[in-house]
């Protein structure tokens, strides 16, 4: 860890203003951005201690939790989640559990209770990959950390790495869970920056690695996530998060599926599928959705969806199993979601 300046902001506007006083280039690796917001710190502090992140300034935004942006608002139209709501608060909220089960489950199955008590949902969607080569600066090769340096994971130990959305430059898995749930429910993300407010589909937030794996999101430097919004769509209630992992208590996903279904009897009227643990970004499996839309969820449809979801998968030395596991995870999640009582 290196010395840094510590400041506190009590409102989103103040935070953005503080961050704005340091000039930041838009194509700097996000990990190297000189100003970082501090929410729960469960990811940021980790990354600073292992010397991967070396911000000059840390802007503590926890006081913003005292404003509306630390809260959860549920109405008949949908839900508004402040970015500083803690993972545990959202996971344990009765209305969230009841009306948006996939959201609550994705959070309950993430990290440990202690971490969920600290971590904010805004920080959660921005957590960095667990790629061990990215997290260890003694490896020179990592395009995400140091653009153009190469990728140590390509020929290395890549059991946890992605099979979907990879590029020649980076195969790191997006590690979080909550993001898949947001995608399954067509969430939007609200953002404040030096140039005012904007919002975008949450599915647009993360960028695939392509040639620039260091550009992890579409946030401009200094922009702050203030909230997530989710409409009360017909498939929100019949939704589920299935997470397969090595250790039952807490561990990142080997494969996961967020599934939301609007059923007309046993016919799928509308489906949303997002996959985790297998892709470089929170992954919407549109082709799989297409395979079951308007159909009965029989074995044939399930198999077709699973095939479609992984049709473009690319495997590496240690992660070939993720195709079979990913397909089975999706199949099981679809079955169990269809069987839900709503």
């Amino acid at each position, binding site marked *: *860890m*290196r*010395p840094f300046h510590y400041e506190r902001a009590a409102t989103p506007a103040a935070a953005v203003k503080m961050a704005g006083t340091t000039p930041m280039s838009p194509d700097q690796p996000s990990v190297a951005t000189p100003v970082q917001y501090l929410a729960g710190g469960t990811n940021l502090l980790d990354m600073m201690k292992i*010397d991967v992140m070396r911000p000059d300034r840390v802007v503590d935004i926890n006081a913003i939790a005292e404003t509306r942006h630390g809260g959860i608002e549920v109405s008949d139209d949908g839900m508004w989640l402040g970015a500083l709501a803690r993972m545990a608060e959202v996971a344990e909220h009765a209305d969230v559990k009841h009306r948006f089960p996939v959201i609550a489950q994705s959070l309950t199955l993430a990290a440990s209770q202690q971490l969920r008590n600290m971590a904010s949902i805004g920080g959660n969607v921005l957590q960095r990959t*667990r790629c*061990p080569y990215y997290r*260890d*600066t*003694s*490896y020179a090769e990592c395009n995400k950390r140091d653009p153009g340096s190469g990728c*140590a994971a390509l*020929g*290395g*130990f890549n*059991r946890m790495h992605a099979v979907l959305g990879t590029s020649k430059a980076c195969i790191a898995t997006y590690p979080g869970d909550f993001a898949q749930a947001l995608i399954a429910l067509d969430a939007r993300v609200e953002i404040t920056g030096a140039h005012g407010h904007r919002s975008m589909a949450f599915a647009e937030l993360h960028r695939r690695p392509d040639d620039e794996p260091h550009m992890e999101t579409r946030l401009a430097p200094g922009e702050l996530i203030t909230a997530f919004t989710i409409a009360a769509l017909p498939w929100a209630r019949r939704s589920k998060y299935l997470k*397969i*992992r*090595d*250790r*039952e*208590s*807490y*561990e990142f996903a*080997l*494969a996961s599926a967020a599934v939301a279904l609007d059923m007309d009897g046993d016919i799928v009227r509308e489906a949303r599928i997002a996959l985790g643990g297998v892709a470089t970004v929170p992954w919407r499996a549109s082709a799989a959705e297409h395979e079951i839309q308007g159909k009965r969820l029989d074995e044939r449809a399930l198999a077709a969806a699973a095939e479609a979801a992984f049709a473009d998968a690319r495997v590496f030395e240690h992660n070939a*199993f993720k195709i*079979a*596991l990913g397909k*089975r*995870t999706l*199949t*099981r999640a679809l079955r169990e979601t269809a069987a839900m009582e709503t």
Partner: protein
Amino acid sequence: MARAAPKPQANMGPPVPRYDGRAKVTGDARYPSDVPVASPAFAFLVTSAIAKGRIVRMDLAAAQAVPGVLDILTAEDTRELKHVKFAAGGAGASTSIQGLGPDIDHDGQIVAVVLADSFEAAREAAHKVDITYAAEEPAATFDATNAREESPEEVGERAKKLPKAGDAAAALASAEVTIDAQYATPAQHHNAIELFTTTALWSGDELTIYEPSQFVFGLKNNLAERLGIDAEQIRVVSPYVGGAFGSKAQMTPRTALIALAARRLGRPVKLVSTRDQAFTISTYRAETRHRIRMGARRDGRITAFIHEGWELTSRPDPYSVAGVEDSARMYGFGAVETRVTLVHADRNTPGFMRSPPVVPYIYALESAMDELALELGMDPVELRRANNSMRDATGKEWSSRSLMECYDEAAAAFGWKERTARPGSMRDGDWLIGWGCATAAYPTHLGPSAVRVRLTPAGEVRVQVAAHDIGTGLYTVLAQLAADELGVPLDMVRVELGDTALPPGIVAGGSVSTAATGSALVKACAAIRERLTAAPAQTTGGPSGNKLEDVFERLGIGAIEEYAEFIPEGGKPDAIASLYKGKPALGGGSHGEKLMYALGAEFVEVRVHALTREIRVPRIVGAFAAGRIMNTRTARSQLMGGMIWGISSALHEATEIDRRHARYINDNLADYLMPVNADIRDVEVILVPEEDSEVNPIGAKGLGELGNVGTAAAITNAVHHATGVRIRELPVRLEKLLG
């Protein structure tokens, strides 16, 4: 799960609560790095980023410029340290012990030590040390092109000391039923919660080291050799150890470096290394491979047993675990042949990790037993019964053996008779159920110990010995034993451990502490009792009662202090003198006149999801016999912890290695998985009464390293029962079951 300590049965001591329990849960217990020293400097290690090659340039400018940095030790500054010879469990236990470069022998070798006024400054500066390497291609593990397998001569030389009986090859060739299977176990790291710490404090020529240690006299003597000073100038203090499991038994490179740094600075120095450094600056359980061939008669009697092992070690050091010594003894085999081959690669030197020889070798044996049972169409418990014998193939007799009693009690508690034999035949909805069992075994080692005991007229007892409670319960059992022997209440006994200012105790290794220290303690207490009874019945005018105070008054003394030494039968007369010099002599197990082992039987249920194949262990039952049980609470705790470790070892623990770079990948507790409380459901420990007057004067067999043996085989056997898939390479991961 039964949460209370088991009720003592025959030959078992009461479950008194832990002597050090309150101090530990209230934070009163001071671990070595908690000991306050005046104005210390803080050290941070810089470790190499390559496994093989040379340091070409080390640029310290940026590091030295960090405010608060006092000194940076590099290879040049440590030339005065003396070379020490490798001895497993002693000194030189890491290839890097001899120097900080420029040659690099393994990943994470210490190459510099930064010293600063604060931990933060030292860490920042360490990150700013800029090193240029000339890297060479390292051999990471087995099958690497440039790994060196021992020559047939070296293997043959070792085989001369390994068990052999009859003509196993011929017996195999003529056997009615045979199996031939290969197994593999991964590298694992101890990952005790307490990290590797050292605090060094000079006062003139006298050096005090606070460091968690499983053998303070060993550390004292090896450090003296390394520093080139007299051992009498060094005191090592380690009253509490926050987990060790073998990793703190030998001297590692850091201690001499910190002592040297403290001398240069003229100031105490404190080091708390990091978690990832713990993977490379001490030892680990090396990966092993096995081939087992067995031949049997139709009735199950095993006529031939051939066990070959391959073990990974570092380039220079021939560390060998050689558990064929134990696997070959487990059953009444007809003929036996064993062989062990070392493979040298560019890695830090491996070493002892909880039950070092038996964990991998009994895993292989007990998997093979299950495979043979299946081949024979026999119940796995019955196969063990058919081969249960009071003699091994060489004709050596067991001092006591309660294996089948363990099997029968554990099987009954588990409900084994409800098992249907066919793999995949037991199911609960989407979950496939499998039941499996295996034998646990740990050699009963014998070792010497000294002790000093003092009794005052008020009935206060003080027990002093430089033995070690690494969480095992030694404080408690010694207090219990002293209270019993001297007839005082437990709360009158004070126990002092882990300090070279005390009489020497044995290394906390080989599960030998209770037996060795306890035997010495019994001797000292007997001597005290003798002196008490020698008191004159009456003195003129003095008290005549039997109260302790009266007896002391008649003796005319203020306290009785007895120093006693215990040397096990057959031990060398200079065993205690050697202990003072830091050399522990461990005997017993399979090496004496008789075979001495603590044994057990473990039964597990696994559940595997039919589709996504996650593996869970909802329950495990173990029954164990280990001679006299000193305290059923601490015994249960050791055995329960052991079984949980066994589950961990089977399902999770593996140190992943980048084969191109020979570097450890998952060197942190988020990626090196272990079960937490939420992962463990029902664990039942059954203590089976057993008496053995031959093992040692107190009749206790060590059990600290028993519970985690065999568990992995019980689990893979259960996984086979659930799924029909035989996993011969640990850990069990769900991808191996997706097939």
